[in-house]
Structures are given as C-alpha cells and as structure tokens.
C-alpha cells in the first residue's frame, strides 16, 4: 500500500487572479466535475436491445 501512497501533506499551490484565489486541488476537482457534466451530455444513453420495440 505504501507504493500507492501519494503524499499531499504539503502546502498547496494556489492560483491567484484578482479577487480569485483557488488551490490546484480545488481547480482540478471543479474541472473534473465540468468534464463529467459535458461527458454526460455528449455520451449516448446505453441502449437496450429491446428498446426499439418500446418507441
């Protein structure tokens, strides 16, 4: 398990733009959520074999 451990117990990197100040961790999370939202919109619903008969 030790090999898998990535130590994040160190000061975060912050991105500052005017009044905005966001940690790299938070930025990655927000971008991931936006990417998931876009994927959820773009990817087709899984189709069932018998779905056509219900249309």
């Amino acid at each position, binding site marked *: 398990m030790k090999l898998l451990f990535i130590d994040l*117990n160190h000061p975060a990197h912050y991105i500052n733009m005017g009044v*905005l100040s966001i940690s790299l961790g938070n930025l990655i999370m927000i971008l991931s959520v936006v990417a998931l939202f876009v994927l959820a919109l773009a990817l087709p619903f899984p189709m069932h074999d018998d*779905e056509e008969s219900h*249309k």
Partner: protein
Amino acid sequence: MSPALSKHDPSKKWSGPTRPYDLIKEAVIAIVIVGILAGGLAAVFSSPDEPALTLKSWALTDPADFVQTATSELAGTSGTAGYGAPYNTASDGQVLGPLKLQKWAGVRIPINTAKDFVVKPLTILPDAAVQTAVNAWNVGSADEQTKWATSYGDALAKSPKALSLPDTNNSYGPVPTMITYLLGMAINGALDGALTTSDTPLPTDFTKPMLFIADSGTYFPDYAAARHLHGDQWGVMNETGSWPGQSWLWLFSFFYQVEPFKSSENADTWVMGLLGVLSVALIFLPFIPFIRRIPYKIPVHRIIWRNWYRRKQD
C-alpha cells in the same frame, strides 16, 4: 406555466413513447463505481493529517502570545470575552439590519473567560503560591480585577517577547503569578485537560480550548493564514495540505472576497441572508420572468433528450 402545457390532463394515461429503465440496477452500478472510486482514491491519496493545535503546542511555540492572550482573558478584552451570544452578553454580535439575530439566539454556552479559562484551571494546582494569588484575585473587586489585568496587559504589549514582568509599581495584583502558573500548566499539557474536562468527565468538549486558542493574537491567525484558511483567502473552500476542499461552497465564499461584505462586521449574516434569498429564488425559478425562459435560449435539455427530439422532428 405556458398555455400549451396547461392543456395536458395529468390524470390521463401516458400514450407517448416509453423506454425500459431498471432503477435498482442503475443504483447498484452507481454505488459500486463510487465505492471503488472512493476506496481507490483514499488508498492512493490518503487523507489530511494535520496535527491538532492544542494549548500545549501554542504555549511551546509562542509562549509570549499565550501570556498576552491569557491576560486579555482575565481583563475581559479578548475576542471571546466581547463576542456576545452564545457565550455572553458583551455585545449584540452579528445583526441583519434591525434584526439582532445573534443576540436573539441567546447565551446557550455561558463563558466567563477570566473564570473559565484562567481562575478555575488554576484552582486544581496543589501549590500554595498560586492558590494565594487566586484567592487574592477572588477577593478583589471587579474594578480592581480589571485594573490589575489591564495594567499587566498594557505592560506586556510594550514588551511583546516577555513571559513575565516585575510589578515595580505594585499595580498588577496577583495577575503575573496567575499567568505564569497558567503558562506552566499549558506547557505541560495540564491546561488542555483542565478545559476539556471542566464540564464533562470525559475530554470530549473542546469548546473552551478552541475559543482560547482562537483568541490568540498571532499563533492561530498565522497558522491559519499559512494554510489559506482565513475567510478573506477563500478559506471556506480550502483544505489543509494539498487536498481539494469544499469547492461547492464557492458562491458562499465568493461574497466574503468582495465589498460591501468583505469589510462588514456583519458579513456572516449578510452573506447567509443573501444565500437564503438566492436559494428561495432557485426554488421559485419556474415563476421568475426572463429566468424561466433560459431553457428556450440555451436548450441543454434538447441535448440530453436529443433522440426524442430527433424522432419528433422526423
């Protein structure tokens, strides 16, 4: 509601297209995927491991700050002493216009900083010198107590590195002795124990030590600032270390960065009030003119249900 929608009879059986949908299967898949993700990410990244701040760590790291803060607790000039409800009646606290919300909540956790943070912990020490000092404090009038502690606090402010000062003018009363013994208690960890068990037999209530540390002049504020945890650093969103924090609180945190909230003494109530108004607006979104027309201008739902709309068009 548009006229076209109002023509539908909700009691009529749906005669349009249907599709099979296994809710249980979908829920199981979602739980399994989220479980694997949560377990996997926890195994790889672990969790924040910031050491707890204690009165002991404070007294060892910055004893002069501890001494000054403890004196302000005796003088009744600390942040907690002047906070108002739920700890005392020293101020109205946060208000929203004419609404004294904090005061109305009442004093539910009564705290007398001099008595609870300094005098009571010292009474458990089996030492004649400190008990003599505590007795001298207790028999002093309220005016005398304030004068002793304020004079000593003023003197310490002029010697910010000092842990104790001689009473050359005989104006500090028993305060220097009390503060010196309290520092000793903090350094050996006894003060943490005394404050966490003052109201309960088990050390489960950290209210008093947390408030005491929060009154610190430099130790606690500097510690929080170095980790971007202050309100004006978007601290509500941040986590210790490099982990992501509560990024969903971005809107709540945003208002603390801009005027007039940023410099307001009542920022908490104003921001909570504004978020309350926005939440109510979200609930009544379908009834708000212009806003309710957004789906017609930005038809995201047409992307989600594109197959349906395509078939409808065909």
